[in-house]
């Protein structure tokens, strides 16, 4: 029942997004063709090309027919053509996607796991010296934006110590292969992942710690203790698991932004991901690419939310009975 109702909600959200993506370039001032294709089309527009594009987007027809043409193309995986890259938008984005997923994915997993463990440990010993040190330390880190941490790491490890590469995702033309190639990629990913992990660590940590403190006061914890369970079982299976919900929500939100979540960090490290692509596309006013990224981000947010919705009842059966 719930899943079905959820699906309908997500379907409506998706339609709104698709419509917005269709409407926006058409209500911008000036020629919609220019709004769809931006600067490059201005440079390369010949009468032949213009006729072809008008036909392709059904621009000479009614708004409904245009929308139909747009939706059909969309379901065939056609997000448009980038004149800047002289390539299909989907191809341009997909070439960058693995690098972003590598960096953002690893830091998402790391920061969530670390956040939970530190939060559980800190909450378990609330008021102790360890707790206070962790709380103060992570609270202050929480104030720094990820790109700033990235710069600090880059200056210390890249510039001053010279042990980390200054930019990119791999050493160009190093002739590496196999294991040394993998190590090279990891070496390049280390600092961006560290910056993102540290920047997002505090969120998960604080949420877990707070819920942990509330959960520890629950009567069932007393029962568990009275049963004589070991400390680790108490900490993680009983208290920890019940503190997970808010962290999952937060991770879900962040997961939705996985595609552009590393925009600033990618810029700092000149990392070839989707964030870097977004920035380039804005600079060169490559509207098809900007729109394509917008669409992919919107759809990932929907998927992430949906996944969180599915995961909730598994973690806390009460959710499925709530009305």
């Amino acid at each position, binding site marked *: 029942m719930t899943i079905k109702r959820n699906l309908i909600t997500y379907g409506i959200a998706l339609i709104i997004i698709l419509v917005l993506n269709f409407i926006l370039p058409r209500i*911008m*001032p*000036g020629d919609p063709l*220019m*709004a769809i294709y*931006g600067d*490059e089309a201005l*440079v*390369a527009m*010949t009468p032949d090309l213009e006729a072809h594009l008008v036909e392709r987007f059904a621009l000479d027809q009614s708004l409904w027919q245009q929308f139909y043409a747009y939706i059909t193309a969309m379901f065939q995986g056609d997000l448009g053509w980038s004149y*800047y*890259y*002289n390539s299909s938008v989907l191809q341009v984005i997909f*070439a*960058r996607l693995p*690098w972003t997923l590598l960096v953002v994915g690893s830091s998402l997993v790391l920061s969530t796991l670390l956040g939970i463990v530190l939060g559980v440990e800190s909450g378990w010993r609330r008021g102790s010296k360890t707790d206070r040190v962790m709380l103060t330390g992570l609270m202050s880190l929480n104030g720094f934006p990820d790109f700033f941490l990235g*710069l600090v790491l*880059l*200056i210390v490890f*890249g*510039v*001053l110590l*010279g042990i980390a590469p*200054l*930019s*990119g*995702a*791999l050493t*160009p*033309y190093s002739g590496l292969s196999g294991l040394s190639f993998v190590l090279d990629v990891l070496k390049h990913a280390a600092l961006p992942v560290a910056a993102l992990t540290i920047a997002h660590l505090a969120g998960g940590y604080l949420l877990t710690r707070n819920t942990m403190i509330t959960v520890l006061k629950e009567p069932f914890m007393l029962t568990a203790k009275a049963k004589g369970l070991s400390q680790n079982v108490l900490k993680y299976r009983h208290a920890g698991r019940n503190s997970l919900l808010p962290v999952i929500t937060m991770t879900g939100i962040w997961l939705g932004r996985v595609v552009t979540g590393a925009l600033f960090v990618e*810029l*700092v*490290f*000149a990392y*070839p991901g989707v964030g870097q692509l977004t920035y*380039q596309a804005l600079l060169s*006013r490559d509207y098809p690419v900007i729109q394509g990224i917008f669409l992919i981000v919107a759809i990932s947010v929907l998927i992430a939310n949906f996944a969180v919705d599915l995961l909730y009842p598994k973690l806390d059966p009460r959710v499925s009975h709530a009305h």
Partner: protein
Amino acid sequence: MPRLFLAVLVISLLPALPACNDEETPASSPIKTYTIADSTGDWGYPSPYAHYSRGPGYVRMSFIFETLIWKNATEFVPQLAREWEYNEDDNSYTFRLQENVKWHDGADFTADDVVFTFDYTKDHPFQWVDNSIVESAAALDRYTVILYLNTPYAPFFQDVAGAQPILPRHIWENVTVPEEFLTADAVIGTGPYKLADYSKEHGTYLYEANDGYYLGKPVVREIRFVKISLEMTPAALKEGSVDSASIPAEVVGDLEGAGFTVISAPPSWNGKLTINHQKAPLSSKEFRQALTYAIDREALVQIVLRGHGLAGSPGMIPPTSVWYNPDTPQYVYNPGKAQQLIKGLGYTLENGYFYKDGQPLTLSLIAAADYKDVGQFIAQQLEQAGIEIEFQTLEAKTVDYKVGAWDFDLSIYGHGGLYEPSFLQRYILGEGFNSARYSINDELTQLLNEQLTEMDTDKRKDMVFRIQELYAEDLPALTLYYPISYWAHDGSMPLYYTMDGIAIGVPLTLNRMCFVQ
């Protein structure tokens, strides 16, 4: 400018390293690898039809593909053509070609390839060259070609002969969609370098020397283009992982101190005040002159550009150009004179602002976010002179649209291409939003059109001089400043800026001939 600040921070933290290549001074000894950094990285597959239509894209292509003639720092030099002459009676050029040139795949280069190229571009225009200029091409013998022009065209060397890459007939004759031709064959040229690798996502290029190059053996065995953010470029230069790169102005002194050679390009770009000269009071020439007197362009360069630029000349052509007319009226900053001119148009000054018929003199100023600082400066200066300014930053495309539809008073805009004076016609008479679209001065209009077909350079220069005087007198738009950009390198290669830019005017140091003996 937080990014620039960070670059300074980074570089001030660096330990002072000795210059990387102190020992390797003689340029003739072969250099194994030369690495050039860039903050964008990817400029497209370096074939004539697949590179992105920006200067750095053309430059990457130009290491592989060559033109009939080329330029060094001071003049046009032979390239695929060893001699050429203009035939006035039939408005054609005869090119005698080099006879020992081979394509990278070993095939002979002949007149056939040149004729083919100009025929091919009729159906498949090369993005940088106006293919309507050459009416036809004919081969007289295996190594002589004649190009017949449609009309006399003064910038022919700059815009056509020195810009059109010559394609190998045996490869391209079967290519029907050149933009999608991305195989290894698509990068077979005659140039001193061959493409060994290109990575779109990492923004890297690897070139290796073409040892059979007809003008001499390339000194550098391997050229790499890599991607590094602007902030990290100084660190990468000092670390020695990069030999050459564009740098932020703030680190010039530091890098020079560390032994790097820093050069700057003659300005080729200008920031402009676009004026709606169709609308009162801006339709009055005196009013536009008053605006010009009211804006301190020297101070603008010092404050907004932090000194890294030149004040704009009202004749548009920068003072560094050979085409610059030193007698162009300059309207040196004089707010008193500005107010006097505005009063002459029937305005009265009350409480520091001008009024006419009880209405305050108010103008709108729109600009894209890129020009926010310049806009604020201009607004402040005009307010000081007594003109109320409503300044608004808008999304770039909206600004373009409003300017195109004459729905504005003042706007700020910039464009490049200030080398070969053919740009004057484009940016004064052209019909796009980026042009002043000013054709009511008959003498100016006539000169702008005629200078394009004047084949005598001295006569053309006189015309261009007169154009600057007329344009500066009428001021349909005002050039505010020319920014200066910097390039640092370790001195191992004698880099220079090409006369009037590479090909049609790319203001980069990377002339391929710097890398050949």
